[in-house]
């Protein structure tokens, strides 16, 4: 399914790469200490951090995967956005951000150190750091696979070129570079996806034409509903019951990912004040609400226009839905923009992993446990060196994945199971001030072990579930329960921390000042996190109504 790129498309791509490097050099001028490098000096406005927040998640794997889900499961894919993301993003902004931003922690693991103890901190810091470099490698390999299929670049060329640019702009400009590139990438990827969607809809005769054709496709009418037939998991394309969708996807999986994943939360921590930090995930929720229009619709268009879509290998896999439409519908010019957008999305995904990794490694592993009490310039230098090492490990992972392609799926699935127990530990620790330090460590550890064990037993065929998705719902829910039970048991046997050590960390104990650092204009109603958040939730409900 080779795309026919011409000189114009390559010029568009080259200009983008130059711009990315330019941002790196420009951002470098603003870096004078480690907080500038790792947290953008806590200086960014909310629209920038908000778009970076949604963009850090809008990697190419996500875009191609959601279009694939659209072609495979139909409109039920919107659950990943409207119930599986928006409520968690609003919750993060309104409820959890005051604890994160107000306690001035520099990372998610650091919160665990203050709230619980060093073992809990180190456990989370190490699993997060390892996960980020391995996932960066997975991103890199996925990018190389797509570029090989689309434009015929050998795998190693894509891996080395993309890694070089990410390495260059993060080492130069740190988190500011990563965030600014994410904001730019957000607009470029949309400039590529919107033309695909429009031409696709013209081809099938508009939305009505598309739905008529989907009814006649192998998915049938079920593909056009989101909640109908969810009483039993076997009755709908997604293979999930409403309980699984609401509690598994909407609560445990989604809250686990959006509220404790430092690669996301870091964007909000770089905001310039409490109001901007709280608005970051909520501003991100608005684009998240409408992104399915440019992923799920192209997926459905591919389903009804590409003959034989849905093979397990070769060009006609569901994952190629968007690349196939690019090939069939886009003329040179817009095609260059779309390829640039995809490449940019891969690089932004990887950059989010790398910038999360270098911060956690430096602030949460190197500084507290290995080389404490050095001056700030030492940690800034460490951050740059660690970035290089992280990217090199990512390249290594990408080459290993190229040798054993199944590894990629395993790595992604394995690390997604770490989120649910982490979220459970956080939410209980934030709202139950009696929860003890050791309860934090032991419950996080046992929840993680249970989640990994269920995943491994499923993969080995000892436990069986309806589908991979079903397994992740159940695995996450059981891990969540394990953490809750263990947290209560251990708390009853150990002594709680005195309230003086929990200030600003736990609900009801000396709450953080929400408006002390406000700037002119922050009191406007359209900058109220609660009003903005309620608006996002209301839109999510409204968007469901035509597709029940």
């Amino acid at each position: 399914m080779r795309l026919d790129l011409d000189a114009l498309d390559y010029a568009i791509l080259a200009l983008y790469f130059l711009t990315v490097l330019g941002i790196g050099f420009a951002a470098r001028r603003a870096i004078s200490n480690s907080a500038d490098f790792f947290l953008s000096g806590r200086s960014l406005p909310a629209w920038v951090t908000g778009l970076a927040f949604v963009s850090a998640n809008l990697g190419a794997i996500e875009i191609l995967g959601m279009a694939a889900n659209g072609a495979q499961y139909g409109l039920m894919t919107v659950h990943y956005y409207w119930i599986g993301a928006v409520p968690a993003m609003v919750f993060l902004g309104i409820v959890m951000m005051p604890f994160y931003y107000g306690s001035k922690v520099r990372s998610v693991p650091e919160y665990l150190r203050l709230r619980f103890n060093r073992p809990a901190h180190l456990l989370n810091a190490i699993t997060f750091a390892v996960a980020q470099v391995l996932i960066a490698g997975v991103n890199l390999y996925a990018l190389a696979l797509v570029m090989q299929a689309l434009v015929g670049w050998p795998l190693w060329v894509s891996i080395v070129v993309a890694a070089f640019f990410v390495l260059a702009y993060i080492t130069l400009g740190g988190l500011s570079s990563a965030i600014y590139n994410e904001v730019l990438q957000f607009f470029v990827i949309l400039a590529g996806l919107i033309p695909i969607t429009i031409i696709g809809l013209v081809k099938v005769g508009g939305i009505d034409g598309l739905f008529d054709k989907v009814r006649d496709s192998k998915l049938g009418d079920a593909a056009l509903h989101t909640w109908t037939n969810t009483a039993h998991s076997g009755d709908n394309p997604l293979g999930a019951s409403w309980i699984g969708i609401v509690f598994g996807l909407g609560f445990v999986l989604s809250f686990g990912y959006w509220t404790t994943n430092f690669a996301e939360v870091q964007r909000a921590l770089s905001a310039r004040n409490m109001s901007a930090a709280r608005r970051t995930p909520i501003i991100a929720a608005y684009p998240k609400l409408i992104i399915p229009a440019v992923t799920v619709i192209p997926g459905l268009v591919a389903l009804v226009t590409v003959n034989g879509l849905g093979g397990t290998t070769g060009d006609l896999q569901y994952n190629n839905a968007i690349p196939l439409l690019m090939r069939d519908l886009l003329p040179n010019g817009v095609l260059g923009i779309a390829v640039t957008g995809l490449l940019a999305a891969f690089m932004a995904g990887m950059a989010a992993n790398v910038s999360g990794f270098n911060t956690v490694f430096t602030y949460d592993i190197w500084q507290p446990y290995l080389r404490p009490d050095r001056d700030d310039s030492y940690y800034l230098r460490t951050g740059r060196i660690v970035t290089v090492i992280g990217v090199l490990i990512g390249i290594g992972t990408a080459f290993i994945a190229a040798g054993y392609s199944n590894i990629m799926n395993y790595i992604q699935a394995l690390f997604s199971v770490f989120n649910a127990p982490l979220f459970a530990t956080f939410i209980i620790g934030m709202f139950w001030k009696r929860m003890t330090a050791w309860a934090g460590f032991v419950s996080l550890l046992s929840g993680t072990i249970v989640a990994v064990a269920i995943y491994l037993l499923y993969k080995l065929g000892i436990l069986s579930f309806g589908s991979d998705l079903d397994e992740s719902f159940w695995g996450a829910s059981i891990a969540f329960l394990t953490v809750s039970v263990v947290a209560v048991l251990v708390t009853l046997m150990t002594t709680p921390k005195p309230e003086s050590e929990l200030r600003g960390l736990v609900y009801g104990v000396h709450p953080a000042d929400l408006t002390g650092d406000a700037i002119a204009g922050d009191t406007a109603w359209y900058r109220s996190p609660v009003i903005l958040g309620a608006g996002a939730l209301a839109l999510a409900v409204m968007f469901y109504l035509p597709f029940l």
Partner: protein
Amino acid sequence: MADERKAARLFDIRRVIGGLFVVYGLVIGLVGLFDSPEEIAKAQGVRINLWTGIVMLVLGVLFLLWQWWRPLELGHADSPTDDTEPAR
């Protein structure tokens, strides 16, 4: 101060987005003016290069106008504080 302001201006992401989209918009829009019938047919009769070019150009100009209309505040040379309302 002049140096600081220059650094801040360079660091303003609105200028980067605006600049890149203006260039992309002009290039793709111009190419779109001269698209061959086959290319238009491939895009289902939509002059997609022309339209995408126009929309990207407009978006780019809007970003540049926004940046020009609400420049970075002085005294925060390293912090783009653009969506702030003027002090009252």
